[in-house]
Protein backbone atom coordinates (compact mmCIF):
# COMPACT_ATOMS: atom_id res chain seq x y z
CA UNK A 1 0.00 0.00 0.00
CA UNK A 2 1.31 3.46 -0.88
CA UNK A 3 1.76 6.35 1.52
CA UNK A 4 -1.41 8.14 0.70
CA UNK A 5 -3.94 5.29 0.89
CA UNK A 6 -2.26 4.08 4.07
CA UNK A 7 -2.41 7.50 5.72
CA UNK A 8 -6.05 7.95 4.73
CA UNK A 9 -6.89 4.47 6.02
CA UNK A 10 -5.27 5.25 9.38
CA UNK A 11 -6.87 8.68 9.69
CA UNK A 12 -10.35 7.60 8.60
CA UNK A 13 -10.05 4.49 10.81
CA UNK A 14 -9.21 6.60 13.86
CA UNK A 15 -12.02 9.07 13.25
CA UNK A 16 -14.47 6.29 12.42
CA UNK A 17 -13.69 4.51 15.70
CA UNK A 18 -15.23 7.46 17.54
CA UNK A 19 -18.55 6.87 15.76
CA UNK A 20 -18.89 3.14 16.38
CA UNK A 21 -22.34 2.26 17.66
CA UNK A 22 -23.66 5.81 17.31
CA UNK A 23 -22.37 8.61 19.48
CA UNK A 24 -21.91 11.01 16.61
CA UNK A 25 -23.26 14.11 18.34
CA UNK A 26 -21.17 17.25 18.06
CA UNK A 27 -19.72 19.09 21.00
CA UNK A 28 -19.35 22.47 19.33
CA UNK A 29 -17.36 23.67 16.34
CA UNK A 30 -14.30 24.87 18.21
CA UNK A 31 -14.13 21.90 20.53
CA UNK A 32 -14.56 19.30 17.79
CA UNK A 33 -12.09 21.08 15.48
CA UNK A 34 -9.47 21.25 18.22
CA UNK A 35 -9.87 17.55 18.92
CA UNK A 36 -9.87 16.71 15.23
CA UNK A 37 -6.42 18.31 15.13
CA UNK A 38 -5.41 16.08 18.05
CA UNK A 39 -6.69 12.98 16.25
CA UNK A 40 -4.75 14.05 13.15
CA UNK A 41 -1.58 14.18 15.25
CA UNK A 42 -2.39 10.72 16.63
CA UNK A 43 -2.91 9.39 13.10
CA UNK A 44 0.55 10.67 12.17
CA UNK A 45 2.12 8.88 15.13
CA UNK A 46 0.71 5.58 13.84
CA UNK A 47 1.78 6.50 10.32
CA UNK A 48 5.33 7.19 11.54
CA UNK A 49 5.48 3.71 13.05
CA UNK A 50 3.86 1.89 10.18
CA UNK A 51 5.27 3.48 7.07
CA UNK A 52 8.20 5.78 7.44
CA UNK A 53 10.00 4.14 10.38
CA UNK A 54 13.18 2.17 9.73
CA UNK A 55 14.04 4.45 6.83
CA UNK A 56 17.64 3.27 6.93
CA UNK A 57 16.53 -0.21 5.96
CA UNK A 58 15.34 1.03 2.59
CA UNK A 59 17.54 0.75 -0.50
CA UNK A 60 19.84 3.74 -0.83
CA UNK A 61 17.90 5.67 -3.52
CA UNK A 62 14.85 5.69 -1.26
CA UNK A 63 16.48 6.08 2.15
CA UNK A 64 16.89 9.84 1.72
CA UNK A 65 13.23 10.22 0.79
CA UNK A 66 12.01 8.09 3.68
CA UNK A 67 14.40 9.72 6.13
CA UNK A 68 13.28 13.20 5.16
CA UNK A 69 9.62 12.21 5.11
CA UNK A 70 9.97 10.64 8.57
CA UNK A 71 11.46 13.85 10.01
CA UNK A 72 8.92 16.07 8.23
CA UNK A 73 5.94 13.99 9.36
CA UNK A 74 7.27 13.91 12.93
CA UNK A 75 7.58 17.70 12.92
CA UNK A 76 4.06 17.95 11.49
CA UNK A 77 2.74 15.65 14.23
CA UNK A 78 4.38 17.82 16.88
CA UNK A 79 2.97 20.98 15.30
CA UNK A 80 -0.53 19.48 15.25
CA UNK A 81 -0.21 18.37 18.88
CA UNK A 82 0.74 21.90 19.91
CA UNK A 83 -2.11 23.30 17.78
CA UNK A 84 -4.50 20.88 19.52
CA UNK A 85 -3.52 22.25 22.94
CA UNK A 86 -3.64 25.89 21.85
CA UNK A 87 -6.96 25.51 20.00
CA UNK A 88 -8.60 23.95 23.03
CA UNK A 89 -7.33 26.76 25.22
CA UNK A 90 -8.61 29.40 22.80
CA UNK A 91 -12.03 27.74 22.56
CA UNK A 92 -12.36 26.99 26.27
CA UNK A 93 -10.18 28.85 28.76
CA UNK A 94 -11.07 26.41 31.54
CA UNK A 95 -8.92 23.77 29.84
CA UNK A 96 -6.05 25.66 31.48
CA UNK A 97 -7.00 23.63 34.57
CA UNK A 98 -5.67 20.61 32.71
CA UNK A 99 -2.25 22.23 32.53
CA UNK A 100 -1.92 21.99 36.30
CA UNK A 101 -0.55 19.18 38.40
CA UNK A 102 -4.02 18.61 39.83
CA UNK A 103 -5.27 17.53 36.39
CA UNK A 104 -6.43 13.92 35.87
CA UNK A 105 -3.59 11.48 35.08
CA UNK A 106 -4.76 10.95 31.49
CA UNK A 107 -4.39 14.69 30.87
CA UNK A 108 -0.95 14.74 32.43
CA UNK A 109 -0.14 11.80 30.13
CA UNK A 110 -1.00 14.05 27.20
CA UNK A 111 1.44 16.70 28.39
CA UNK A 112 4.18 14.16 29.06
CA UNK A 113 3.56 12.82 25.54
CA UNK A 114 3.98 16.33 24.13
CA UNK A 115 7.33 16.77 25.86
CA UNK A 116 8.33 13.26 24.85
CA UNK A 117 7.59 14.16 21.22
CA UNK A 118 9.83 17.20 21.51
CA UNK A 119 12.62 15.13 23.09
CA UNK A 120 12.32 12.31 20.54
CA UNK A 121 12.32 14.70 17.61
CA UNK A 122 15.14 16.89 18.92
CA UNK A 123 17.36 13.93 19.75
CA UNK A 124 16.96 12.54 16.23
CA UNK A 125 18.69 15.44 14.50
CA UNK A 126 22.32 14.66 13.61
CA UNK A 127 24.02 16.96 16.12
CA UNK A 128 22.16 15.96 19.29
CA UNK A 129 22.00 12.36 18.10
CA UNK A 130 25.78 12.07 17.84
CA UNK A 131 26.24 13.86 21.15
CA UNK A 132 23.90 11.59 23.06
CA UNK A 133 24.24 8.20 21.38
CA UNK A 134 27.51 6.42 20.79
CA UNK A 135 26.26 4.33 17.88
CA UNK A 136 23.45 4.37 15.31
CA UNK A 137 22.22 1.04 16.67
CA UNK A 138 21.84 2.45 20.17
CA UNK A 139 20.03 5.51 18.81
CA UNK A 140 17.61 3.34 16.84
CA UNK A 141 16.89 1.14 19.84
CA UNK A 142 16.24 4.06 22.20
CA UNK A 143 14.28 5.92 19.51
CA UNK A 144 12.07 2.90 18.89
CA UNK A 145 11.39 2.25 22.58
CA UNK A 146 10.72 5.93 23.28
CA UNK A 147 8.35 6.07 20.31
CA UNK A 148 6.41 3.06 21.58
CA UNK A 149 6.22 4.70 25.02
CA UNK A 150 4.92 7.83 23.30
CA UNK A 151 2.22 5.80 21.54
CA UNK A 152 1.18 4.32 24.90
CA UNK A 153 0.99 7.78 26.50
CA UNK A 154 -1.12 9.13 23.65
CA UNK A 155 -3.41 6.09 23.82
CA UNK A 156 -3.84 6.68 27.57
CA UNK A 157 -4.59 10.36 26.95
CA UNK A 158 -7.18 9.76 24.22
CA UNK A 159 -8.89 6.72 25.73
CA UNK A 160 -8.71 8.11 29.27
CA UNK A 161 -10.35 11.40 28.38
CA UNK A 162 -13.17 9.27 26.89
CA UNK A 163 -14.70 12.26 25.17
CA UNK A 164 -15.05 10.57 21.81
CA UNK A 165 -14.13 7.02 22.78
CA UNK A 166 -16.95 6.83 25.26
CA UNK A 167 -17.43 3.07 25.51
CA UNK A 168 -15.15 0.26 26.63
CA UNK A 169 -15.34 -1.29 23.17
CA UNK A 170 -14.13 1.89 21.45
CA UNK A 171 -11.40 2.43 24.03
CA UNK A 172 -10.17 -1.15 23.80
CA UNK A 173 -10.19 -1.11 20.01
CA UNK A 174 -8.32 2.18 19.92
CA UNK A 175 -5.63 1.19 22.44
CA UNK A 176 -5.17 -2.23 20.85
CA UNK A 177 -4.65 -0.72 17.41
CA UNK A 178 -2.73 2.34 18.52
CA UNK A 179 -0.22 0.51 20.68
CA UNK A 180 -0.53 -3.02 19.34
CA UNK A 181 0.24 -2.33 15.68
CA UNK A 182 3.41 -0.28 16.30
CA UNK A 183 4.59 -2.83 18.89
CA UNK A 184 4.01 -5.72 16.50
CA UNK A 185 5.82 -3.89 13.71
CA UNK A 186 8.67 -3.06 16.03
CA UNK A 187 9.15 -6.68 17.09
CA UNK A 188 9.05 -8.28 13.67
CA UNK A 189 12.11 -8.24 11.40
CA UNK A 190 12.23 -5.55 8.71
CA UNK A 191 10.64 -6.85 5.51
CA UNK A 192 12.70 -7.26 2.40
CA UNK A 193 11.59 -4.79 -0.23
CA UNK A 194 12.42 -4.95 -3.88
CA UNK A 195 12.39 -1.42 -5.18
CA UNK A 196 14.84 -1.83 -8.03
CA UNK A 197 12.33 -0.74 -10.65
CA UNK A 198 10.76 1.98 -8.57
CA UNK A 199 11.52 5.57 -9.55
CA UNK A 200 14.08 7.41 -7.42
CA UNK A 201 12.46 9.79 -4.95
CA UNK A 202 14.30 12.77 -3.59
CA UNK A 203 14.30 14.58 -0.28
CA UNK A 204 12.55 17.51 -2.00
CA UNK A 205 9.76 15.20 -2.97
CA UNK A 206 9.39 14.31 0.69
CA UNK A 207 8.56 17.96 1.40
CA UNK A 208 5.79 17.94 -1.16
CA UNK A 209 4.51 14.65 0.24
CA UNK A 210 4.41 16.20 3.71
CA UNK A 211 2.31 19.09 2.45
CA UNK A 212 -0.10 16.60 0.88
CA UNK A 213 -0.26 14.64 4.14
CA UNK A 214 -1.00 17.79 6.14
CA UNK A 215 -3.70 18.89 3.70
CA UNK A 216 -5.31 15.45 3.63
CA UNK A 217 -5.45 15.28 7.42
CA UNK A 218 -6.94 18.75 7.67
CA UNK A 219 -9.60 17.70 5.13
CA UNK A 220 -10.46 14.55 7.12
CA UNK A 221 -10.52 16.58 10.35
CA UNK A 222 -12.75 19.21 8.77
CA UNK A 223 -15.13 16.49 7.58
CA UNK A 224 -15.21 15.05 11.12
CA UNK A 225 -16.08 18.45 12.57
CA UNK A 226 -18.69 19.19 9.90
CA UNK A 227 -20.41 15.83 10.17
CA UNK A 228 -20.59 16.04 13.95
CA UNK A 229 -21.98 19.54 14.07
CA UNK A 230 -24.28 19.52 11.07
CA UNK A 231 -25.94 16.19 11.83
Amino acid sequence: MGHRPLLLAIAVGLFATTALGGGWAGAGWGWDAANAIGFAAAALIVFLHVETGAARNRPAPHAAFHSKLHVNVAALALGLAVAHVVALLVDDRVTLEYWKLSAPPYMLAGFVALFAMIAILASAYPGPRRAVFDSPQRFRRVHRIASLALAALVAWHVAGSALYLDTRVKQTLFVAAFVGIPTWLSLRPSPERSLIDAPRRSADEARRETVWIGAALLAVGAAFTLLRNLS
Partner: protein
Amino acid sequence: MTARRAIVGASLLAIFALAVAAGHGRRDAVETRPLLPLTFAHVDHRSVNCITCHHNFADSTGQGLCIDCHKTNAQVRLQIEPMFHTLCRDCHVAKRTAGDDAGPVRRCVDCHTADEAP
Protein backbone atom coordinates in the same frame (compact mmCIF):
# COMPACT_ATOMS: atom_id res chain seq x y z
CA MET B 1 31.44 6.40 26.58
CA THR B 2 31.44 6.50 30.38
CA ALA B 3 30.34 10.14 30.37
CA ARG B 4 27.49 9.31 28.00
CA ARG B 5 26.35 6.46 30.19
CA ALA B 6 26.48 8.75 33.20
CA ILE B 7 24.35 11.32 31.38
CA VAL B 8 21.80 8.71 30.32
CA GLY B 9 21.76 7.17 33.81
CA ALA B 10 21.37 10.55 35.49
CA SER B 11 18.59 11.47 33.07
CA LEU B 12 16.67 8.27 33.80
CA LEU B 13 17.13 8.80 37.53
CA ALA B 14 15.95 12.38 37.21
CA ILE B 15 12.86 11.27 35.26
CA PHE B 16 12.06 8.65 37.90
CA ALA B 17 12.53 11.16 40.74
CA LEU B 18 10.39 13.68 38.89
CA ALA B 19 7.63 11.10 38.39
CA VAL B 20 7.64 10.18 42.10
CA ALA B 21 7.63 13.84 43.14
CA ALA B 22 4.85 14.57 40.65
CA GLY B 23 2.79 11.72 42.09
CA HIS B 24 3.04 13.15 45.59
CA GLY B 25 2.62 16.68 44.35
CA ARG B 26 -0.47 15.80 42.39
CA ARG B 27 -2.21 14.36 45.45
CA ASP B 28 -1.56 17.57 47.36
CA ALA B 29 -2.57 19.65 44.37
CA VAL B 30 -5.91 17.86 44.00
CA GLU B 31 -6.67 18.15 47.72
CA THR B 32 -5.85 21.82 47.98
CA ARG B 33 -7.12 22.99 44.61
CA PRO B 34 -9.90 25.57 44.94
CA LEU B 35 -13.22 24.50 43.49
CA LEU B 36 -13.96 25.76 40.01
CA PRO B 37 -16.97 28.02 39.65
CA LEU B 38 -20.05 26.10 38.59
CA THR B 39 -23.41 27.06 37.22
CA PHE B 40 -26.30 24.73 37.83
CA ALA B 41 -30.00 25.38 37.30
CA HIS B 42 -32.30 23.19 39.37
CA VAL B 43 -35.16 24.38 37.21
CA ASP B 44 -33.60 22.66 34.20
CA HIS B 45 -33.22 19.39 36.07
CA ARG B 46 -36.74 18.86 37.37
CA SER B 47 -37.07 15.64 35.40
CA VAL B 48 -34.15 14.12 37.30
CA ASN B 49 -34.85 12.32 40.54
CA CYS B 50 -33.39 14.37 43.42
CA ILE B 51 -31.49 11.46 44.93
CA THR B 52 -29.60 10.94 41.67
CA CYS B 53 -27.41 13.76 42.96
CA HIS B 54 -28.49 14.12 46.57
CA HIS B 55 -27.84 10.46 47.35
CA ASN B 56 -27.17 11.27 50.99
CA PHE B 57 -30.90 11.82 51.49
CA ALA B 58 -31.39 8.13 50.79
CA ASP B 59 -28.26 6.39 51.91
CA SER B 60 -27.45 8.47 55.02
CA THR B 61 -23.85 9.10 54.02
CA GLY B 62 -23.82 12.70 55.17
CA GLN B 63 -25.66 15.99 55.34
CA GLY B 64 -25.38 19.45 53.93
CA LEU B 65 -23.81 20.46 50.66
CA CYS B 66 -22.20 17.94 48.28
CA ILE B 67 -18.87 19.63 48.76
CA ASP B 68 -19.00 19.12 52.52
CA CYS B 69 -18.02 15.50 51.87
CA HIS B 70 -16.67 15.46 48.34
CA LYS B 71 -14.03 18.08 49.05
CA THR B 72 -13.08 17.00 52.55
CA ASN B 73 -13.64 13.27 52.95
CA ALA B 74 -10.35 11.43 52.42
CA GLN B 75 -12.11 8.53 50.69
CA VAL B 76 -13.65 10.59 47.90
CA ARG B 77 -11.85 13.94 47.67
CA LEU B 78 -9.28 12.67 45.18
CA GLN B 79 -12.13 11.43 42.96
CA ILE B 80 -14.07 14.67 42.87
CA GLU B 81 -13.36 15.38 39.20
CA PRO B 82 -14.25 11.97 37.71
CA MET B 83 -17.21 11.54 40.09
CA PHE B 84 -18.91 14.81 39.18
CA HIS B 85 -18.04 14.55 35.51
CA THR B 86 -19.49 11.05 35.37
CA LEU B 87 -22.62 12.19 37.15
CA CYS B 88 -23.25 15.34 35.11
CA ARG B 89 -21.48 15.01 31.79
CA ASP B 90 -22.28 11.39 31.05
CA CYS B 91 -25.98 12.10 31.58
CA HIS B 92 -25.81 15.09 29.22
CA VAL B 93 -23.92 13.06 26.63
CA ALA B 94 -26.45 10.22 26.83
CA LYS B 95 -29.30 12.68 26.25
CA ARG B 96 -27.46 14.34 23.37
CA THR B 97 -26.78 10.96 21.78
CA ALA B 98 -30.46 10.10 22.10
CA GLY B 99 -31.33 13.35 20.30
CA ASP B 100 -32.92 15.00 23.36
CA ASP B 101 -32.25 18.43 24.84
CA ALA B 102 -29.04 17.85 26.72
CA GLY B 103 -27.42 21.08 27.81
CA PRO B 104 -23.63 21.35 27.76
CA VAL B 105 -21.75 18.19 26.87
CA ARG B 106 -18.08 18.99 26.42
CA ARG B 107 -16.88 22.55 26.77
CA CYS B 108 -15.69 23.05 30.33
CA VAL B 109 -16.64 26.73 30.39
CA ASP B 110 -20.29 25.96 29.65
CA CYS B 111 -20.66 24.57 33.18
CA HIS B 112 -17.64 26.01 34.96
CA THR B 113 -18.74 29.61 34.97
CA ALA B 114 -19.63 31.85 37.85
CA ASP B 115 -23.07 32.75 36.48
CA GLU B 116 -25.74 32.09 39.07
CA ALA B 117 -28.65 30.15 37.67
CA PRO B 118 -32.03 29.66 39.39
